[in-house]
């Protein structure tokens, strides 16, 4: 869970950086997309590096989902089913974060989003706003539609919560929570990464929706 989660967070940061190139203009953005395919040449064949990344991502996502399902079913059994305590006076727990409630269903939301996202911008099977040959135009066409921006916004909020608890939890699982000071620092780091990812991913869609990028 922790290792695959951190790989996915690393990917998110790289992906977000790439998306922000939209602000450098159509040429820079399309150039970046082409460059990704040429990465590693001539050592690797065309799109070779990209495929390595894709395979690592796929393995990580599958491993992450397997671990999530395993934790989920173990927890369900250990709690003795769905109904644990009759008292409803402590529904929000003693100190737990809101993010920690969202991990499981939030993960499912993210999975559905990723499928939609791949259909839209990677495979170009659905093309809200009109089909286009160049990645830049696909992005700009899509995000001129408010409902598309809304769907991306909901998904990115889910990602934000997921990464908030995930960053903290993964680093703790790997042994980084060594003192109460370390705990505070890990939590600050987790909020920072989550905020960065959420805002960073949402900047391009909103910039397009409000006409700053066209």
């Amino acid at each position: 869970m922790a290792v695959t989660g951190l790989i996915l967070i690393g990917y998110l940061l790289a992906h977000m950086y790439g998306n922000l190139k939209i602000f450098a203009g159509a040429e820079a953005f399309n150039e970046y997309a082409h460059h990704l395919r040429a990465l590693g040449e001539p050592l690797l064949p065309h799109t070779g590096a990209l495929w390595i990344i894709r395979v690592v991502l796929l393995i990580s996502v599958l491993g992450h989902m397997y671990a999530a399902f395993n934790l989920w079913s173990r927890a369900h059994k250990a709690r003795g089913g769905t109904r644990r305590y009759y008292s409803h006076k402590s529904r929000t727990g003693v100190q737990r974060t809101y993010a920690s409630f969202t991990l499981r269903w939030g993960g499912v939301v993210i999975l559905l989003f990723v499928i939609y996202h791949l259909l839209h911008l990677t495979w170009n099977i659905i093309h809200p706003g009109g089909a286009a040959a160049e990645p830049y135009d696909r992005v700009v066409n899509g995000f001129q539609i408010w409902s598309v921006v809304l769907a991306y916004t909901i998904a990115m909020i889910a990602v934000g919560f997921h990464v908030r608890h995930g960053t903290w939890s993964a680093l703790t699982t790997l042994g980084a929570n060594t003192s109460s000071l370390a705990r505070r620092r890990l939590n600050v780091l987790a909020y920072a990464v989550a905020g960065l990812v959420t805002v960073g991913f949402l900047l391009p869609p909103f910039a397009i929706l409000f006409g700053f990028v066209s």
Partner: protein
Amino acid sequence: MNVTLRVWRQANGRAKGKMAIYRVNDISEDMSFLEMLDVLNERLTLQGDDPIAFDSDCREGICGMCGLVINGVAHGPQQTTTCQLHMRSFSDGDVIDVEPWRADPFPVIKDLVVDRSAFDRIIQAGGYISAPTGTAPDAHATPVPKRDADRAFDAATCISCGACVAACPNGSAMLFTAAKITHLGLLPQGQPERYSRVVGMVAQHDAEGFGGCTNIGECTAVCPKAIPFETISRLNRDLISALTHGGSHWPRAAPKGETEVDEED
């Protein structure tokens, strides 16, 4: 003060339980929560009803026998044991929900009493040191840095009450297990078995049916001994070291319900 209790009643492990309502009048706010239950039980006994079964022993917060989920929180509104919780933490007229620890590895025996022997089996799987018998060595024969001694002691204060499990959304006993790993792993006497201990205890923890830790932290917030959260990272570090340097000789979990420890080869 007067309070209304909604208490879990269950005749035995196989019976279906339910919440029952009792009014308890004229109690002193200086009574402990358990003394308040004693008052109610005296009345039930006089009426010829079955008194409410609950566990307790020392009633001074050191044995770990008592443990109730009060208003949905393990040990109730104060971060202490149920026996050290006083009625002044409640208000006149309150409705108070009282339930047993709920976890599959802690089956209910009767009413509010649960069987926590799963914890004993986790301890048997590695929560000890092997020491030669004979004359006790001088206490200061092996120096221990002050910082290590303090941190080991913080972890050693665990009274195995099980509140961590009752509070954990995953039903995990990681805090309990980590407290023992930290206590013994920080001291020189605990070094020879340090890595087989963590592998054995975690394997037993999982075999007992406790859930996996996802670092939510509800356990430390209800722990009457404030076992620090960082014990869990320490356990994980020892586990990662053990598994990356380990071999086929690591101990395996004893089947659930058995109390012997596997022979190590």
